[in-house]
């Protein structure tokens, strides 16, 4: 079954404008990256060439930026023009997101901490302070981990069957 490779390729495309540009120029690149049927390869190439790809890539970036912007606002300010290349590099290294905003913010912080030379000196205080806040919130969110909160009330009988 190659549907999984098609779906992976689709997810890779919306996460990478660079890959979109490559496939638009050279659709055969898909054959080196994924195990696709000829029809799936045609489909991915057509999607990459479609006008909607710009919106796909923009929405992907907006959705991935949200947890960072919401939880690390001072760090984003402090990074200034460095935010775009740094977060783009992070997204390239980690193309999938985590639905948990705090986990996603923590992942970005850890990515930066592992690359101290890439980080502007002026951004360190904001990184350390806001990463600490994220870790505190994460610890609080784990308060109920492993404990069952939902109560068995019989599930309710579906009214529509």
């Amino acid at each position, binding site marked *: 079954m190659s*549907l*999984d490779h098609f779906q992976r390729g689709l997810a890779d495309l*919306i996460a990478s404008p660079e890959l979109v540009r490559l496939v638009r120029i050279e659709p055969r690149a898909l054959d080196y990256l994924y195990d696709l049927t000829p029809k799936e390869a045609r489909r991915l190439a057509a999607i990459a060439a479609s006008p909607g790809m710009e919106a796909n890539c923009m929405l992907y970036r907006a959705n991935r930026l949200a947890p960072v912007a919401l939880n690390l606002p001072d760090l984003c300010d402090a990074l200034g023009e460095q935010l775009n290349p740094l977060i783009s590099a992070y997204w390239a290294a980690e193309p*999938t997101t985590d639905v948990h905003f705090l986990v996603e913010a923590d992942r970005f912080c850890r990515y930066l901490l592992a690359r101290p030379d890439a980080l502007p000196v002026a951004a360190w205080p904001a990184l350390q302070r806001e990463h600490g806040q994220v870790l505190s919130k994460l610890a609080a969110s*784990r308060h109920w981990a492993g404990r069952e909160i939902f109560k*068995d009330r019989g599930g309710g009988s579906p*009214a*529509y069957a």
Partner: protein
Amino acid sequence: MTAASTPMVGLLYNPAVPLVLDALGARVDYVEVIPDRLWYDYGPQAGRNRFSHAALAIDELRRHCADRAVIGHGIGLSLPSAMPLDEAVLDQVAASHRDLGYEWYSEHLSMFLAPHRSVPNAQAGMGLPVPFDEEVLEIVSGKVRRLSDALGGARILMENGTIFSEVPEPDMSEPEFFNRLAAESGAGMLLDLHNLYANCLNLGVSAQDYLAALDPAIVVEIHLAGGDRLKGHYTDSHSRRTPSPVWEWAHEWAPRFPNLAAITFEYHESYHRRLGLAGIAEEVELMADLAARVGEARREAAA
């Protein structure tokens, strides 16, 4: 659902909705709950500590569900993905159903989880289009049956998505896919008219052709919402009130769906201030008018 009944009207639940429910009371028949927002998921590597529930939010939700119906609307199972269902997430969805008692449960006909990823619970970043092929139909049908079993036989609905790029060379059209899915799995349809509106603007889809191709009997719920323009595209951002063309389609088509049981307005909590309590209340009143019209048409037809 009887032939002469009037559909319910409700709101997609978000952290701002309790303000609306306190103000509107019984004018909102139900809340539609996204169970994935009721817990933090730390991924399979966390073992028995994988899920940590938002206990206070769940308590508040229970308070608002006490005298209202509840519908489940999930985003985390990604039924069209070419990978098995995440049984641990499924267990949580089932536990939430045993607690809250969903009238039915819906998921999206979009891919949210990407196969072959290294990050547990990895999300593609947005809902992605799926090929309307026999292979995907078989995958989704099987998962619909499994999901229904896990929820004690509850009805499952699948929602049409909003996309910016179509998957070419499909085996069948999107409406045909929904019709076949209903026949093969029993899944009803959650018809998101705003998603259809976005696809009309972005892809040139004909709403009339799309709606006419659907088996009217499969539509159980309608979603309404508003969106934004984004560099020549239109997004389903849940940021505004329902646009006029969507209302026109709703009034034209809703009376033709014999099993339509619910009409839901979706908005994101970050736009609560923009919409305003008065604006949301007006949406609820407009939905109630639409539901009453559907009920009246059914009673006339039954007489």
